[in-house]
């Protein structure tokens, strides 16, 4: 009783944690102290070691594979695996969601923890308990709904419900809102506050500093594998303070200065219609027309599920949908974009929203992934030139400041944000005329975001066109010269940078 709700007691202490991977010192004597009943945020740049620290804590990396000590509820903890830490009430929700898409909500919540008697699952009880949990997290879905049919935001809530189904004392959320829209994010953060009121302690990792300020009581900042500061957030902490500790210097602007210059017409799309690949009666994209001029950054705003990704993928080599009609003109001439290789040749590039399953080959190196979409550029007569490949990969590593010991690292071992930079490098390397970016800064730290914006600006200064799909309204407003607003598969409005603001965009969506 003394522990729960008592703000003053230390629930968790991690002392001098050091964790090395071959060639990388991911954590170097990191200290972290979490008080009972608080929400503790961990901030740091991509690759700083945040996820690794949490994996050490939860036993993903078992005791003995790292140096240092973990004290939980006052006792030394040596977890051999996730099971051990879960038994003690430490539940982690990883950066990549781990739900089984083909199973129902209830099945996922009780996976590995089935309410069974003699091996027979009592579905009635499981569904009942799931309903109760769903109510608790504020999710209005039936326990028998398949995960497949839920958006990322709702899946996140299911993950939390799953955590609550176990006796949770310390809840760890690794970038829970990275893939969420503002409304959904807010719901999730409020849920955290509610759980806090009930005595649950949480750790949250996030690159969205506004959210950190909203929920956190304490912030620990990690830089290059070292804990640099612990800040009290209750007394009102500014984002700039956090950023300064994260990057080690002052960062005054979040968006690099942009000179607007819309040149001649680069890409024109007319009468674009797409139907769903399986349910052929469902029209996903409805008669869309839009254009991009040379040097322009064109934003596409919309809610999740409004069809933005489907639009982009259907244009890019018909990678989505069927029965596609419409024309794509580049430089005034109709372009053949009917296959991905043709679309690339025509000058299109598409940075996918889902880097793990669509963007990267995780088991291969940075070099392998960087050159993959333009192997012609590093080969002669079909024979690869290893030196040229290395040069290209090194070039982008430096330009994008990807944090890695070498370009021969497996991409799967990089931190989330650095993986995103590799995807970006892959597409920059195709020297596209029009670059379509789908959530380009998801899970990326403030410093790296700035770098990516700078790259976007540089491309547009070279007269390239950029199409940016983003759920982060400030980013869209900060970067775009023009914004199309999309809702339910159709464009419902177009705003110039001067006209655009959050309210107008939302009202266009709602009025539809």
């Amino acid at each position, binding site marked *: 009783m003394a522990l729960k709700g008592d703000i003053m007691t230390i629930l968790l202490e991690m002392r001098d944690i050091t964790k090395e991977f*071959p060639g990388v010192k991911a954590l170097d004597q990191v200290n972290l102290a979490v008080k009972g009943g608080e929400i503790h945020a961990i901030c740091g740049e991509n690759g700083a070691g945040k996820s690794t620290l949490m994996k050490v804590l939860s036993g993903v*990396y078992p005791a003995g594979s790292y140096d240092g000590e973990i004290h939980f509820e006052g006792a030394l903890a040596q977890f051999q695996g996730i099971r051990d830490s879960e038994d003690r009430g430490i539940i982690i929700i990883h950066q990549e969601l781990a739900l089984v898409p083909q199973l129902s909500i209830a099945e996922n919540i009780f996976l590995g923890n089935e309410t069974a008697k003699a091996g027979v699952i009592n579905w009635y009880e499981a569904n009942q308990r799931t309903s109760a949990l769903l109510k608790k997290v504020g999710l209005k879905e039936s326990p028998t709904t398949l995960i497949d049919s839920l958006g990322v935001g709702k899946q996140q809530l299911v993950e939390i419900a799953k955590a609550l189904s176990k006796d949770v004392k310390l809840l760890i959320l690794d970038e829970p809102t990275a893939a969420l829209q503002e409304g959904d994010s807010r719901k999730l953060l409020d849920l955290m506050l509610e759980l806090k009121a009930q005595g649950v302690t949480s750790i949250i990792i996030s690159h969205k500093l506004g959210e950190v300020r909203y929920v956190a009581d304490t912030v620990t900042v990690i830089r290059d594998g070292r804990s640099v500061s612990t800040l009290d957030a209750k007394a009102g902490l500014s984002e700039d303070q956090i950023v300064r500790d994260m990057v080690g210097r002052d960062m005054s602007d979040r968006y690099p200065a942009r000179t607007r210059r819309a040149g001649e017409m680069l890409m024109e799309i007319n009468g674009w219609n797409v139907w769903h690949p399986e349910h052929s009666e469902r029209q996903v994209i409805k008669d869309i027309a839009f254009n991009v001029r040379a040097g322009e950054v064109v934003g596409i705003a919309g809610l999740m599920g409004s069809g933005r990704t489907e639009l982009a993928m259907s244009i890019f080599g018909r990678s989505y949908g069927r029965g596609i009609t419409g024309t794509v003109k580049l430089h005034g001439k109709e372009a053949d974009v009917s296959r*991905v290789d043709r679309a690339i040749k025509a000058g299109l590039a598409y940075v996918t929203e889902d880097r793990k399953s669509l*963007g990267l080959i995780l088991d291969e190196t940075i070099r392998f992934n960087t050159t993959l979409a333009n192997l012609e550029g590093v080969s002669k007569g079909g024979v690869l030139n290893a*030196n040229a490949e*290395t040069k290209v990969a090194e070039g982008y590593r430096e330009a994008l400041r990807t944090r890695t010991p070498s370009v021969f690292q497996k991409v799967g071992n990089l931190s989330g944000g650095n993986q995103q930079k590799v995807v970006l490098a892959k597409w920059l390397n195709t020297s596209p005329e029009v670059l379509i970016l789908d959530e380009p800064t998801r899970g990326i730290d403030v410093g790296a975001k700035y770098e990516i914006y700078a790259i976007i600006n540089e491309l547009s200064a070279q007269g390239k066109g950029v199409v940016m799909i983003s759920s982060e309204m400030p980013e869209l407003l900060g970067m775009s010269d023009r914004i199309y607003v999309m809702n339910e598969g159709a464009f419902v409005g177009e705003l110039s940078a001067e006209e655009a603001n959050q309210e107008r965009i939302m009202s266009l969506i709602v009025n539809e």
Partner: protein
Amino acid sequence: MDTQTKGIKAHLAAHMRDFGLLFALIAIMVFFQIVTGGTLMRPVNITNLFLQNSYVIIMALGMLIVIVSGHIDLSVGSVMGFVGALAAVLIVHYNMPVAVTVPICLIAGAAIGGAQGYFVAYWRIPSFIVTLAGMLVFRGLSLWLLEGQSVGPFPKSFQIISTGFVPELFPASWGEGLAMLFDARKFNVLSFVLGLAAAATVIRMGLKARKRDMDYGIESEPAGLFWARTLIVSAAIVFLMFKLSTFRGLPNVVVTMGVLIMIYAFVTERTVIGRRIYALGGNEKAAKLSGIKTERLTFLAFVNMGVLAALAGLVFAARLNTATPKAGFSLELDVIAAVFIGGASMSGGSGKIIGAVVGAFIMGVMNNGMSIMGIGIDYQQVIKGLVLLAAVFFDVYNKNKQG
């Protein structure tokens, strides 16, 4: 000194798979050399070993590509038998010249591979099912072609595909002299010179790759380890070629095989198409969105497999000098096992040609050694099965340990 031994240890740990495979092959060879009282390494047996395994190795090259691309081909044994039967019927029954038959058979192999690849690539039917069907179909078709009988013998011009040896190009007196020197009955100088050349190439290429790695600051293998590995491999090549030289020289199939191994190693490691195959197996969706024509590539992987299975069928028939309805029976299992022992992963995207070749040799030496020892076919199967399991277990264990 201490840091150096640490470096060697770390490198060994990181490349456990490659070194483990090499050591396993050497250990198995030494073991059988001892227990067979030296029979294993007799020149005639080494010649046999190559002849017996050539068709498995040839098919393993294609199988590696199929497996790397994320598929499997269960039909290769049957296809091999079928093509052998086709050759026999064309040559023996229809008196077709060898020079015409061989291309027809290779084209037939391509067509068979293409037919199966078509369903796998364009209709997305799992390769396991398509090729299981193919296995049954072509087993049946071989029986039908041969009407249940063995068909043979073949003309000399066909037999030499397998049982021929490379001619001597050096003056006979050289061979006689060397034979005297090494206390052998005869000596094929060309074979030995080719062996020396191959060993020199191994060293040269190793040094070149090493230099490139160092230039780019990739943590390269400690010098001691590099030389130990390279010298063992080159010494083994020279030793085997020396043995072959004192018998009838270099068999034609070994030349064919060697050339094919080099071509496939080159294609998989150094070319655009090879790179794309790894990408396809590593993450098909990502590969597709990178502009790779994944369907066509899958299709081609099966066409290639078909051609190699056909070639293996010709080699096999030529060696036995007859085509039998049972030829190639369950050989697909040896081929697939060789690829997995060689370190390829079931889920696609990884595996090397040289691994598959070494895997095939491990299987081959075991087959051969156990037969010399007179171990029954029953035990042989059990032991081979366990070796496959052990190899794959070793892989998984290593992966888990590296986290």
